Every structure is written in C-alpha cells, then in structure tokens.
C-alpha cells in the first residue's frame, strides 16, 4: 500500500528551535516520497497537538506518522498512543530524535544541527515508508517489587505498593530502618518528631503480610530486565539468635571494649561494636558491627542469645520492578573549610541538630554554654564550577527551623544567619517570618563575598561585608559556628551501578524527564524516589515515593507486559539450514524444520527475544529482524548519507 505520511517537526519550546531551523527542516522534507503532510509544532507532546494529529490521521487517512522531537525514551509511547487513538497501528509511527542527539548535542553549531536534523527526519521517513502494522508480544511480569532503601521514601513506597496488593521486598543496607528522618527532631510543617513518623510507618510495615523487610541486607547482583529482575541479596546477620533482656544488652554493651564513631549522631559521639537501636530506629533490638568487632566474646558471656558464629546468607529474589530509594549523604566540609576541623567550635547542621536533641536545660558544647550561634549557609552547595554547583533547596528551611527550635528550647541563645539569600519557598516562608520575629539576625554575602571564619585560641569570629547594610563589615563572636551543609549523593552508590542507572550532572540518579517522567529511569522497570534523585525535603520525598510506587506497580500489576514485536524471521527461499543461527541463538529459539521441501530454520516466536545475534552469522543472509530488515536499515543509511 502506498504510504501517506504525516510528519511533525517539534520546536520543543526553544529546546530544538533555538539550535535547529525547524522551518528549514520542514521545507526540506515536505517533498520526500510518501509525505502527505508536514508541519512544525511548538510542543508536539501537548494535548492540543496530539488532538490535531488524531484529526489529521483520520481526516487525511494517513497510514504512517513521523514525529521529530526529543528522545524516543521520552515520547515514543505518547505518539504510539496518538496513533492508536486514531485507529492507526502504533508500529506505523516512527520517532526521530532531533533534541538529545541533535539540537542539544550541537548547540554550538546551528547550521550543522539543522543539516543533521534534515537527514535524521529523512531517515525516519524512509523507515516509515517501510513500516508494517505489527502486534506486540506479551511476557510474564513477576508481581513483586524490590524497594531498595528503607528511609521515609522507601517505607512510604513499600506501604503504597502493599496497599495495591503487590508483594514488596524492602531491602535496607543498615541494621535499622528509618533512614535520615530517624535522626531528626521535630519536622516542619507538621511539628511531628522524626521518630514518631518512623514509628508510625514501621508499625504499618510490620502489619502487612505482603511486605518482607530485610535489614543489614545489600543487593549484590542483578540479572534480567523489566518484568523479571533476578537479584542476589546478601544478608549480614545481627549475631543475635533471640532477644536479650534490656539489662543483659546494657551490660553486654558496657563490656564491649571497642569504641567507634557513632554515624547516627554524625560522629559527634561514640558507640560500641555491639549496640542497640536509638529510640527512633527499628527493629528495636541490638546488633553487632562485625567490621569493628574483635570477637573477644565478652558480650556472648553475658547474654546467651548473642551468637558470633552466625553466617551471612545470600538470597535470590525475583521481582518485576525495582524502586530505588537509597537517599543522600550530608555534605562533609573539607578540613579547614570555614574552620571545620580546625576548631571544635565549628560543626555541621546535621551534627548541631543531633546536639540539640541530646541536650537538656542548657545547650552545652565542650563544657561551655552556647549563646551566640552563627549559621553559615550554602556550605557544599552553590559552589563554583568544579564543586557542587546546585542548590540543595532544603537547607535554608532546615537551618531556620533549627534556629527556631533551638530558641524555643534554649531561649537565651542568639542566632546569626550568614546567608547568600534565603530560599524558603512555599509555606516555609512562615518559618522565616517566625525566625525574624524571634529576633534572629540575617546578614548576607554573595559568591564573591563569602563569610570568613577566623579561629583564634579562645574565640571564633565570623565576618562578612553585609550587602543588606550597604556592604558594611560585620563581625560576630560565635560560641558555635554551624555550617549549613547541603545534600550530596551517597558516597557508596554502588547499587545504582548494578542496574546501570544513569546519573545527572549533579551525580544524583537521573529521571527520564524532570516534568513528564519524573520517577522513571532509562533502565526499563527501575524507578527512583526520594533524595537519591535530587535534594528533597520529607514531603517531596514522600510525593516522589508514591509516584514511583504507582509507576513500579504499573509494570507488574497485570502479571504480563507488552514487549516489542521484534523477532527474527526466516526467508525460506534463502535459508539452506547450516545450524549457524541455531548455535548463535542464546535462547534456543531456532530449530530445524523438515516440513518443507528442504531443511530450513524456524523461529519459536514465543522464545525469540529479538536480539538479532542470529543475523550476522547467516551465510545466505536469510534472517532479518522485524522492523530492522535490510531494507529498513539500508534505506535509513541512504537517507543519512545523502549530501
């Protein structure tokens, strides 16, 4: 049948048209064979354009569509759906990527990018001319989701999936679940303490039969793909065969000779190699940190439920989707950065938050009562090129919230904020107003005029030329300097590498599209939630967790997934059965058939995965992949090659 194609060239706002002359592209392709209609459009993906496309297809009886826009990863499905709404087989739609692989990649060369766009669209037209209507394949999808990370995002996602009747494996690397929220006191805007939030979520988790929680557990390998991920999970024992009494556990901890920095309190306190949860962490039991334990056996002698002979286990899990919620690390300043590690009068905001939690009556530090607190903002954020150039977004609010809470708990303190402009968006502005009302002093520098910390023997001075008072030099003698640090990606994000998750320029895991596909990744079946994706506050993390849960569920809910109808096909006239294809096939999808006049290869359509490994080994070129035939590929090469 003669092709009647509709071709749409997208401006993508200016993402394409700022670097590609889209009108020139349209003119260059409108007379190509088969093209019946050619248009440019401001946003091809917009509802109005989609409706226009449906109208065009129906009105003009188009039997093929090409959209030249962003990556097919983003909108291939969108335009296939448009085709289906217009009763056109969706495989008659061909996508041309002129954004990621053209306008953005060649934003320094408009002429070159325009020429390239013309060829890319011509190649897509060439392919569309040969496209046939196809029927998708179906594969079984394991109805289970692995949620990696049991912080607030992971816990909320697990509960949401459970509510949708989906089995969940919640895998947490540390011995306790709760994540960062367990480390915080009262949260803004709810005023709910972090421990209460974690407790509430934990109680929900343990009451759901379709959630299996693994703590001290790490994914060590991944095989398979969407619908059928095969994970190996290494579970490190807690070295407890049952519960010790509180008294026994206390004595065992006291007897332990090993002391290490306590990561829960951001290393401002020490813990033993055997330790118990804090009141905000779950499960409420002890654990032995075998990396630091010397196996002296003193704890075993106190409680017979302690068993140092326990061995780690490796479990095999099969899931249809993986939801990544591995969280963030707080930025650790360099030694000497604003006096950090030069004096113990300089701490980070997370350390200060733990100090407040652990202090009563008076805010003491190094045996001295703290009165003047200087907060230095944007430490580890908004750095010049080469550092963390991004804004962590939560830290202004967190610092101001901390200053409000510290003033409530210790009314005699004075808060001095050395900012680079306050970014308390939305309701968080109320907190800023409250801080001003309680008498906090705000001073402002900028990128070229950062505060300076002068460490002297007995005192610490913070200086800035305050741009809010016409650049006047202002100096504060601080009992404590709090560095308002931002979020950085986890130092150990190796689990992301197992899934080959792409990272963005800030090194957080990257979504496909910040507005349109916010929790999906380029790896089919893997979603991301919470602050492993970008700096987020608790509310934003929870929102993304619920979105990721819904998306992961959509992959597994039906128990089957549609896959591309791309399988190998045999040209019976050319095939002389030599066995090369059958040997090359990793899925045993090819066998010999004697049903015809001669022996030939036959493809088991249910088993063929469409890899194409059989194609290059065939001596008579009798094999082709559907949608990747010689004609289709070579016609695209022809179109790309024309000068």
């Amino acid at each position, binding site marked *: 049948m003669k092709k009647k194609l509709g071709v749409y060239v997208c401006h993508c706002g200016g993402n394409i048209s700022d670097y590609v002359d889209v009108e020139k592209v349209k003119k260059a392709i409108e007379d190509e064979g088969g093209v019946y209609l050619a248009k440019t459009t401001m946003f091809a993906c917009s509802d109005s354009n989609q409706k226009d496309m449906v109208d065009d297809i129906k009105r003009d009886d188009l039997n093929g569509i090409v959209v030249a826009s962003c*990556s097919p*990863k983003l909108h291939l499905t969108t335009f296939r759906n448009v085709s289906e709404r217009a009763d056109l087989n969706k495989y008659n739609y061909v996508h041309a*990527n002129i*954004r*990621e*692989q*053209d*306008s*953005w*990649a*060649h*934003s*320094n*060369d408009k002429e*070159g*990018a325009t*020429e*390239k766009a013309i*060829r*890319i669209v011509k*190649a897509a037209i060439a392919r569309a001319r040969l496209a046939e209507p196809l029927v998708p394949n179906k594969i079984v999808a394991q109805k289970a989701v692995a949620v990696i990370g049991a912080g607030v995002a992971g816990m909320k996602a697990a509960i949401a999936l459970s509510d949708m009747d989906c089995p969940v494996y919640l895998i947490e690397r540390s011995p306790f679940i709760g994540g960062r929220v367990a480390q915080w006191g009262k949260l803004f805007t709810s005023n709910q303490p972090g421990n209460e939030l974690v407790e509430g979520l934990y109680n929900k988790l343990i009451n759901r039969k379709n959630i299996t929680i693994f703590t001290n557990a790490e994914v060590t390998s991944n095989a398979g*793909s969407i619908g059928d991920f095969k994970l190996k999970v290494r579970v490190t024992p807690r070295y407890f065969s049952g519960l010790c009494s509180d008294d026994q556990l206390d004595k065992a901890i006291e007897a332990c000779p090993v002391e290490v920095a306590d990561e829960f309190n951001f290393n401002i306190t020490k813990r033993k190699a055997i330790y118990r949860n804090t009141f905000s962490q779950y499960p409420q039991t002890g654990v032995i940190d075998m990396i630091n334990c010397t196996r002296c056996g003193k704890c075993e002698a106190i409680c017979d439920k302690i068993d140092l002979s326990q061995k780690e286990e490796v479990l095999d899990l099969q899931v249809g989707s993986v939801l990544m919620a591995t969280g963030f690390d707080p930025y650790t300043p360099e030694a000497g950065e604003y006096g950090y590690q030069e004096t113990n009068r300089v701490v980070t905001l997370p350390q200060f938050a733990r100090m407040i939690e652990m202090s009563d009556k008076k805010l003491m530090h190094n045996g001295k009562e703290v009165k003047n607190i200087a907060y230095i903002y944007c430490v580890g954020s908004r750095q010049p090129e080469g550092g963390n150039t991004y804004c962590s977004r939560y830290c202004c609010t967190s610092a101001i919230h901390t200053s409000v809470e510290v003033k409530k708990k210790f009314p005699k303190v004075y808060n001095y904020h050395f900012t680079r402009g306050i970014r308390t968006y939305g309701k968080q502005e109320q907190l800023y107003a409250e801080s001003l009302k309680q008498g906090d002093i705000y001073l402002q520098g900028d990128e070229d005029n950062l505060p300076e910390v002068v460490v002297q023997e007995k005192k610490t001075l913070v200086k800035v030329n305050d741009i809010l008072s016409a650049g006047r030099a202002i100096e504060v003698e601080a009992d404590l300097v709090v560095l308002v640090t931002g979020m950085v990606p986890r130092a150990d994000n190796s689990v992301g590498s197992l899934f*080959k*998750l*792409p*990272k*963005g*320029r800030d090194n957080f895991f*990257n979504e496909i599209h910040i507005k349109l596909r916010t929790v999906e990744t*380029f*790896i*089919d079946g893997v979603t991301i939630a919470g602050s492993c994706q970008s700096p987020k506050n608790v509310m934003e993390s929870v929102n993304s967790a619920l979105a990721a849960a819904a998306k992961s569920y959509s992959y597994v809910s039906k128990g089957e997934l549609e896959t591309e109808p*791309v399988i190998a096909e045999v040209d019976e006239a050319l095939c002389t059965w030599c066995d090369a294809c059958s040997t*090359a096939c*990793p899925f045993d999808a090819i066998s010999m058939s004697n049903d015809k006049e001669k022996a030939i290869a036959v493809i088991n359509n249910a088993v063929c*995965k*469409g*890899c*194409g*490994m*059989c*194609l*290059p*080994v065939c001596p008579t*070129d009798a094999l082709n*992949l559907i949608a*990747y035939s*010689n004609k289709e*590929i*070579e016609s*695209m*090469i*022809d179109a*790309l*090659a024309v*000068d």
Partner: protein
Amino acid sequence: MAEKIRKSAKILVFSTEKISDPAIDMAGLLKLHYPPTVYTISVPCSSGIKPRWIMHAYEKGFDGVFIAADGTDCIFGESCTEKTGHLVGKTHTMMKQKSIDPARLKMAAICSVCSESFVKQIKGFNEYLLKTINP
C-alpha cells in the same frame, strides 16, 4: 581545483536501544558537543548488526562506522561481546577485500552512563578519519 577541507568526518554510529543509546542521549543532555556529522541508528543489540549494513554505509559515503557496543551490560547475555567481536572481524575481512582501511570501523563498549566516554571515543575517531580524509 583542490578538494574542500572537511571540518568533520561523516560517521555512522550503531547504538543499542537499552544500553548505549541512553548514553548518547545523556551526552546531548549534558551538552557534551561532538561533530554534527555523526548519525545514529539504534538496534536492539550490537551483536545483531549485519556486516552488509556497515559495508553499505561505506558504499554510500560514510567515512567511518562506530559500533557503540553493549559490552558486558548486554541484556541479551554475556555472549554479546564475543559475537560483536566476531561480526567486526568478519567486516574487517570484507573491508580488506574492498581495500577499505579496517581502522574506519571502530567498536567500543558504551554503557548507559558512558556519555563522556562516547564523546571522547567519537572525537578521537573523527580526528583519525580527518587525517585520512584531509591528508
């Protein structure tokens, strides 16, 4: 009249939909520039590229062909690397028969996050090809 000096070589890239294509997309997203005469055709797996397609590209005027291979990340199995190597070897033989410099076919494993590696490889390949085009 002397031939016009070309600024960039015409390169056809065979990428793979799940592994190397996302890396090439990401290179664009990060505005990592490379020559605009680099064109991509995406296939399911690098071990399914036919030597005749590569030969067709040279016939039609491409200076070089770059296979952005799946490597060990291939979703279709570990044999991908070896099989892609075989098809490259087979193509090299065909190229020699037609007196085409085998170095005009290049293969490198490009994982889904290897954007910088892709751009580095392509720029290096472009420089090599330019030396042969504009000696």
